[in-house]
């Protein structure tokens, strides 16, 4: 433990705890802020979005004002009652807020009129007046004509706009071209719930009107002018609630509308309508709970986003922690491996050293001694060689640096020779086998031999003294060769079973105190993979282990 401290080992637990607490605090804080923001945002929206509602609701009116109204001018004064009626029909149909239209079919001339306006020599008066609208009865369409002058009201829209026209002509600067806007504003009159429009004559005609104010022209000219007075009904404006989740109710109310009963349960706002509707306003009202719903629906996606963000953060932290852990284990394995490897090499080397020393220090060696030392040196050199071969082969296989040799072998003979060699080494090894379904088999004999040796060696090594048994069965099942190595050894605990094929892995127990590198099974797995086969294991602690190798069969 002390050596671990010196090497820089630190305890993580308090750090992890602090991290988690901080994260939680931050998470809660962001949720809170998000909620606060949502509330503020929706409250602001409630106030600001009314402009959009107004804009969309008033669009037909703007369309009417900018597109339909100038259409009167297109007729250049040639409108008569029938054409005007047709025109008004399209207006009434398209723009429901227009309730009634009064059409003044009028004339500009030099002879004074009794109904209308006479300024200097300039006279402007209606020939006839008609009214159109869905509620106007058929018999009262015609309001005024030369033989029925009763219905002309001096103070009505006609005279108001006529006065505007006259004062404009009076001040008209004939040397320059008037702008479109200037003309439009002087030929229209926008009053509460009413728009009066007079067709805009050509500039040449306007100049003529100006002359007509001062003198009578000969022959007397008569200019046709059409005036249309549109009566508007603000309550017929179609409200377009572009935010139905924000505004529960939108109403058109007089400008003075301000109900007392709006309790704290409701939120309200208002905006004045433009132009001829300026005596009215759009009144927006929503209950608090309605607004809360909208706040929630705005807040939830944000909360989800925050949650997702933090989840990812925690996941990343966890992954980093896990990787660090694994790396640490890997480091430990390699460390162990170095230890073992050194140990493995050390034993034969020290034996060789002792034998060498003995030979050097002895004055003379007997025949028996010579043979003994020779045998020891030979055996230990073999051991070293074997160790190095194993290491080399493993790295080669792992890097796919060797070629697969295909050779036809007689499976019976092959196993027989393996069994024989092991029996020779370990006379107490009860080694049996059986072959079923095939006799020959094409494979790499060296690799297969290596595989058999490793597994047999393991079986012998991890079996108690009285149960050193191994049975190999070779079968051809569904076109594949299946080898089973069943021993009655100490078995592998199920918690470790997934690790045994890993490099440098060793189960700590009495059987591998010395002489194990932890490479054997990893090497076997690499071999089998290299031969395009599979290796699996089944084991019960203290009962035995069975390795199953499946190889492709090609005869």
């Amino acid at each position, binding site marked *: 433990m002390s050596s671990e401290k010196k090497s820089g080992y630190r305890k993580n637990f308090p750090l992890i705890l602090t991290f988690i607490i901080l994260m939680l605090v931050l998470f809660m804080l962001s949720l809170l802020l998000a909620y606060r923001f949502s509330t503020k945002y929706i409250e602001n929206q409630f106030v600001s979005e009314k402009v959009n509602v107004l804009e969309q609701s008033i669009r037909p009116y703007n369309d009417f004002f900018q597109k339909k109204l100038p*259409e009167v001018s*297109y007729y*250049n004064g*040639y409108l008569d009652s029938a054409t005007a009626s*047709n025109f008004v029909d399209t207006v009434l149909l398209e723009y429901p807020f227009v309730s009634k239209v009064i059409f003044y079919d009028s004339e500009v001339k030099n002879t004074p009129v009794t109904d209308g306006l006479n300024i200097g020599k300039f006279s402007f008066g209606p020939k006839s007046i008609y009214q159109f609208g869905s509620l106007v009865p058929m018999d009262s369409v015609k309001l005024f004509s030369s033989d029925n002058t009763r219905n002309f009201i001096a103070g009505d829209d006609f005279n108001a706009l006529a006065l505007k026209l006259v004062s404009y002509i009076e001040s008209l600067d004939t040397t320059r*071209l008037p702008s479109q806007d200037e003309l439009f504003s002087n030929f229209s009159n926008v009053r509460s719930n009413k728009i009066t429009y007079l067709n805009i004559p050509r500039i040449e*005609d306007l100049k003529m009107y100006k002359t007509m104010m001062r003198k009578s022209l000969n022959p007397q000219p008569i200019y046709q002018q059409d005036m249309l007075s549109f009566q508007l009904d603000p309550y017929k404006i179609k409200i377009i609630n572009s935010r139905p989740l924000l505004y529960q109710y939108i109403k058109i109310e007089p400008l003075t509308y301000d109900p007392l009963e709006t309790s704290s349960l409701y939120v309200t706002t208002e905006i004045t309508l433009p132009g001829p509707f300026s005596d009215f306003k759009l009144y927006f009202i929503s209950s608090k709970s309605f607004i809360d719903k909208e706040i929630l629906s705005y807040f939830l996606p944000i909360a989800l986003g925050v949650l997702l963000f933090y989840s990812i953060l925690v996941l990343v932290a966890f992954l980093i922690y896990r990787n660090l852990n694994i790396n640490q284990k890997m480091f430990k394995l390699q460390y162990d491996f170095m230890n073992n490897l050194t140990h493995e090499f050390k034993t034969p080397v020290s034996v060789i050293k002792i034998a060498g020393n003995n030979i050097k220090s002895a004055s003379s060696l007997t025949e028996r001694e010579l043979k003994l030392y020779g045998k020891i040196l030979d055996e230990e050199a073999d051991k070293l060689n074997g160790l190095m071969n194993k290491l080399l082969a493993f790295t080669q296989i792992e890097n796919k640096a060797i070629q697969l040799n295909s050779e036809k072998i007689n499976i019976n003979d092959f196993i027989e020779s393996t069994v024989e060699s092991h029996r020779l080494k370990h006379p107490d090894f009860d080694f049996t086998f059986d072959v079923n379904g095939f006799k020959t088999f094409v494979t790499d004999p060296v690799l297969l031999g290596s595989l058999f040796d490793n597994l047999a060696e393991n079986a012998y090594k991890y079996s108690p003294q009285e149960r050193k048994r191994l049975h190999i069965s070779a079968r051809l099942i569904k076109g594949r060769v299946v080898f089973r190595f069943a021993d009655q050894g100490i078995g592998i605990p199920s918690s470790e079973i997934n690790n045994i094929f890993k490099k440098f892995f060793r189960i700590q127990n009495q059987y591998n105190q010395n002489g194990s590198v932890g490479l054997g099974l990893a090497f076997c797995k690499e071999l089998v993979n290299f031969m395009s086969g599979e290796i699996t294991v089944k084991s019960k602690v203290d009962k035995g282990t069975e390795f199953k190798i499946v190889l492709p069969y090609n005869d």
Partner: protein
Amino acid sequence: MVVFKKYFFLFLSLFALACTQKGGVRVMPIDDFFKSQNRIGYRVSPDARNLSYLKLEGKNQNLYVEDIETGKGKKITQLKEKSIIFYFWVSKDELIYYKETDPALRLSDIFIINKDGKNERQLTNNEKSRIKVLDDQLMDDKYLLVSSNKRDSTVFDVYRLNVRNGEMQMAAKNPGNITDWTTDSEGKLRLATSSDGVNETLLYRESENDAFKPIVTNNFKNTLRPIAFAKNKLNVIYAISNVNRDKGALVELDCKTGKEIKVLFGDETINITDAQYSRRKQKMSFVVYETWKKEKHYLDDSVKLIYNNLDKLLPKTETRIIDRDKAETVFIVRTFTDRNPGSYYLYFSETGKIRKLSDFNSAINEDEMCEMKPVSYVSRDGMKIEGYLTLPLKMKAENLPVVVLPHDGPVARDIWGYNPEVQFLANRGYAVFQVNYRGSTGYGKAFMAAGFKEWGCKIQHDINDGVKWLISKKIADPKRIGIYGTGFGGYIALNGLYSENKTYACGASNSAVINLFTYLKSIPPFLKPKLQMYYEVIGNPLTDVDKMRQSSPLFQVDRIEKPLFIAQNTKDPNINAGETIQFVKNLQKRNISVTYLENDGDPFYSKNDEGRQKLYTALESFLEVNLKKK
């Protein structure tokens, strides 16, 4: 060094390639098509000693007089800009010119000047009235017969204008509806034409002491145009008449009875539109009849000789005699073809020689221009429609992009000859298609009347049928047909975008009539007698409201889907600029692609090079994007 040279030549050849269109046609600068030469308006003095012309120097145009024999010229006026709209010789030493004062209202002042530039006097100084010379001969060496509306802007009276002191004496008071006056060989006012708008009446008196008596009345659809009083035949005039026949003919008319005596020339296959009378010989020289181009029939062998001689001297070109001296020995001749605006020549009939004066437009090379071919086809209701097709140079007449170019109106026609607009478009690689749709002049009474009140209807069909004919001939690429026009031509172009929607890929208009109601309103007060006629030609704004609305683009914005080019001059008195702006606005509101070009310079492009350049540059790129690159 060698490598460098190689690359240099490669670069040069690439550069040369970049400058030419496919097929090797040079893209000519816009201005070159429209340039008029700096010398125009040639006239010869009555004594055949002097030649006069208007010469442009920089921005200023002035009157020059040149001695024919020595060729020495002298500037006799010192005016700014292009202000002389008309001039003529009144005697062998004096000239009269009109100086424009208000182009919009067509008002001008009249000046008289000596041929050496001395003794310049203003004859009139009446800014409110229009004045018109009825007879360019001086009477008693000092009186000029003019008509003027100074008494009443709606009617023209005849005055004797003393060119020495500018005094005006009324020669005949217009009772209110006389629109034209004719003088006899002595300059005596003996014939007048009155009009109440629909009907035209010929009035006659035997001498200036008598009162005018109406002799024959005709509807405006008929033409009865006095040409000259017949020699040695009392009370007989030559006239071009299509009364009681479809096409015009040269007739003798008895002024006592108003009856036609005989047809001098003409039958139902040709339409005579003009005639030339020689005052010196007191004889009819020739009549002009229109087929796909104007042609002459000679009634005087000596005249025929002159023209035949001219044809020999100037082969493969049309010739027109513009002016001559009193003795008819020296002539000013103008030549032209469809590919050449032509030149001016002086022709001496005694020696049979010609002298070239100047080219009309020296920037035009005949080989680079395109041929204007007369074409004809049958419309859907079986009427034969004639027109012209100009194909781009060095291109196969197959699957071409086409610009349909309907002419202005309401009563006009396209003629064969050099047309800068057509040549400009053809040079840019478009086939140009011109149609003399029904209602056009020159094809007889019935054809003209067939177009009355057919705006947006049969007139439009005629043009669309022409396009279908072009497609069936495989000349036009049905996906690349555009339509462009000016005035009523622009009206037809805009109408074309919605009448039979799929025909055109795009439409362009310049100073277009977009509202027939406004067009009727634009007829000025002094043309009031003509209002009735316009009602018949265009439509009556009270009884034909629906039809007129249907065929006025301004009302039909919702039906237009294709890209548009709209140009207008806000100073143009014939259109209502505000309405066009409203039209463009309404189109933009519907997200239709509109290229709007506003010009506020002089509405007459001949005086506004910059405006013209802008218009055609914009038009070129509009067509490029919407026709060529499709």
